[in-house]
């Protein structure tokens, strides 16, 4: 379960596959290479009651117990961002737990849905979906955000500059920024960066020690099931077939490691929930990274094209006079 810092045999074989491309083997389809692996979570919202007698839902409290103290205190005054002056400071609102914040990485949405003339309340724990092809991680300019072999998408707070590119790229705008902390303070605090982005890391440290994420362990109603991706996906399909439930997260953004199971269609839930900053939607999501696939494949084949053109050029030149063109 633990991460190996070395290139795995599988990774090596994939790289060798890349070399095979140069031999004209052709590019594999995304579904064939780099298949998603690791853990997944099933969140069955028909089981969640939002912990009505608790100050906060227990999954939220467990997460806060584990992570709230990990956010360093920001410097005072927090440097003003040039030229816009905008900073994001949650340090005096640590208590907020009805949305995602740097200090609150999971929260429970409430939906009221009418069914057969009756209003039914449903509760939806929301946090990072840990996407299979997370643009937030793959396009992080500093690799501060990475997708690990165990399925977790993790931001390294020591490397994050706080530009919030990950939040812009996330279809649900999950990561939340705290200004006044992080590496940017030591470089160009007013000109580049603006803090550190925080989000659920799937309790990376716990799962590498064969423990379950804190939110999963804390739930008294087994709303969340955590396990191998294959088992979780099978279980979701089984329950959906059995109860006629709807699944969200299987195809969204090209697939994720978090599957929601709902007794009512997600478009109806989406209409009912409160949406906005820190409060993600339940819309269908098309993977924007897929738009780049054709050009990306062309790029990977371009060395081959350049070499082929050169050989052709040499053949043409050799058939000419002396082939000397100066060597610039």
């Amino acid at each position, binding site marked *: 379960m633990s991460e190996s810092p070395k290139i795995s045999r599988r990774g090596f074989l994939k790289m060798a596959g890349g070399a095979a491309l140069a031999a004209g083997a052709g590019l594999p389809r*995304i579904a064939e290479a780099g298949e998603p692996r690791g853990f997944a979570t099933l969140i069955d919202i028909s089981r969640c009651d939002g912990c009505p007698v608790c100050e906060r839902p227990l999954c939220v409290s467990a997460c806060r117990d584990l992570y709230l103290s990990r956010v360093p205190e920001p410097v005072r005054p927090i440097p003003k961002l040039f030229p816009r002056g905008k900073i994001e400071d949650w340090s005096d609102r640590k208590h907020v737990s009805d949305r995602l914040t740097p200090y609150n990485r999971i929260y429970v949405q409430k939906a009221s849905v009418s069914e057969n003339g009756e209003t039914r309340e449903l509760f939806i724990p929301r946090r990072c979906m840990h996407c299979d092809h997370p643009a937030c*991680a793959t396009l992080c300019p500093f*690799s501060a955000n990475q997708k690990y072999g165990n399925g977790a998408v993790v931001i390294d707070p020591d490397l994050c500059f706080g530009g919030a590119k990950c939040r812009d790229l996330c279809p649900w705008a999950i990561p939340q920024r705290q200004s006044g902390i992080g590496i940017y303070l030591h470089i160009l605090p007013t000109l580049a960066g603006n803090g550190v982005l925080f989000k659920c890391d799937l309790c990376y440290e716990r799962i590498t020690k064969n423990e379950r994420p804190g939110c999963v362990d804390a739930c008294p109603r087994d709303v969340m099931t955590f396990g191998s991706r294959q088992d979780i996906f099978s279980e979701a399909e089984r329950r959906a077939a059995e109860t006629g439930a709807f699944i969200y997260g299987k195809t969204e953004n090209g697939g994720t490691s978090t599957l929601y199971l709902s007794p009512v269609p997600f478009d109806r839930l989406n209409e009912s929930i409160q949406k906005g900053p820190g409060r993600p939607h339940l819309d269908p999501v098309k993977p924007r*990274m897929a738009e780049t*696939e054709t050009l990306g494949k062309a790029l990977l084949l371009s*060395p081959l094209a350049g*070499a082929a053109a*050169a050989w052709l050029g*040499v053949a043409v030149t050799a058939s000419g006079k002396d082939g000397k063109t*100066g060597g610039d």
Partner: protein
Amino acid sequence: MTERILEKEGVVVRHSLLERVEHWTVALSGLVLLLTGLFELPIARRYFITELPGFGWSGDYITSLKIHYAASTVFIAAGVFHLVYHGLLRHDGMMPRKGDIRASVEVIRSFFGKGEEPPFDKYLPEQRFAYAGMAFIVALLILSGLVKTWKNLFDPQLSPPLVMTATWVHNGAFILFILAFAAHLGALILKPNRPLVRSIFTGSVRLDYARKRHPLWVQRLETKRPEGTPGAKEQDGRVPENT
């Protein structure tokens, strides 16, 4: 088109059409890469670049990435073409030679009025030195970029240390590329180098300039001529340089 003296036109052909096409393909795609690479940083909206006419797209990372990929395809193909084509034909005129670093220092000092320039062959020693440096930077950019693209397309769970290495090699080489690009343009501002600029557009430099500053090159070209043609006689006694 081979490098040669065109006495009647008063010019020396320095760059073939193919070489100029290579240069401009790399230069223009490199410029697009530089710009779209910058736009992969969260700066376009922050610094109001998105509000410049024609730059509305610059705040969309996916659009920038698509343009970056397209420009990379051209840049890499041109770079590999350059390497393989000139490598196979053994065009080694721009390869650094022993003593180029010391000679480069002397030449740069002469630009600022300290000492005199030595007689040059086709290329200045610091041109050869800069070429090797730029080739190294471009190689780093291409190799790290290929790893990043492979990860983006096929394996987001590629080994994190490998991804981290590729990212920081790419970022570091990007900064070096900007510096080398600026130095390349800066060299053209220096007065003694200005007569060279026309060659990358037209393919030739003035013969009087070449005779004065690149006598070893002119000598080589003239010794290739049949005996008795004008200009060859006066070079008698010089040893041609083998490039």
